[in-house]
């Protein structure tokens, strides 16, 4: 066994021995992946896993390094990029990935990618043509 494998095993035993907690956060992440376009709140997420919302928030952050809300936003931005590349309009994209206002979608998109959705789409479409 290499040094790396020994270290992996050692760290796994310390950090990932609680299988129930792992199952809870992985199921929550999968739920977000499959339902990102819906109105997802911490209440909904904790309800689906039968755990308290603050407990879920702490667990998710502990294992994934970011909160469920941050993960959801990243997921929506990633999906919106895919939709914009396919030629969907900015407004359609906004609602298709679960944002409720075009203004807040555009502002968030710009913070995360450095470009507005319209600029991003223009660049992508001109590149592929």
């Amino acid at each position: 066994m290499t040094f790396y494998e020994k270290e992996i095993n050692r760290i796994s035993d310390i950090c990932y021995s609680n299988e129930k907690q792992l199952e809870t956060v992985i199921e929550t992440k999968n739920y977000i992946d499959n339902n990102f376009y819906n109105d997802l709140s911490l209440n909904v997420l904790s309800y689906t896993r039968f755990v308290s919302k603050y407990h879920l928030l702490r667990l998710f952050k502990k294992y994934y390094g970011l909160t469920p809300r941050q993960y959801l936003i990243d997921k929506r931005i990633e999906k919106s990029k895919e939709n914009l590349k396919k030629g969907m309009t900015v407004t359609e994209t906004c609602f298709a990935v679960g944002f409720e206002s075009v203004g807040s979608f555009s502002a968030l998109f710009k913070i995360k990618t450095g470009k507005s959705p319209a600029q991003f789409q223009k660049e992508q479409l001109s590149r592929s043509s």
Partner: protein
Amino acid sequence: MKVTLISIPVRDQEKALKFYTEKLGFIKKLDTPLDGGNRWLTLVSKEAQDGPQILLEPAPNHFEPSKVYQDALMEAGIPYTQFDVDDVDAEYEKLNKLGVEFSIKPTEMGTVKFAVFNDTCGNNIQIVEML
């Protein structure tokens, strides 16, 4: 400031170019001749062609400490860097069929599944799927 480049030390740039494009599916982006047959050789991911570039850097051939460090990582089984994939099992099957040698088969650890292979240019490389 932006992150646009990660560098991977390689013993043979041409061999590395072949492995990273033909086996791993990266695309050549820049190829500029430099002194002594060395090249500024970069690759991008097929799925993110405007994303960060990989620089295949011939450092171990020119700077001994780089070679020593690379050898030590290889000996310890430690990956030089890692790439994200959607499905580690599928990637493992595909690369295995192409003759890529794995030191760690797909393994779950906490919230990730990972595997480690030899890039034939002096490095262990890890692929990771978030569970």
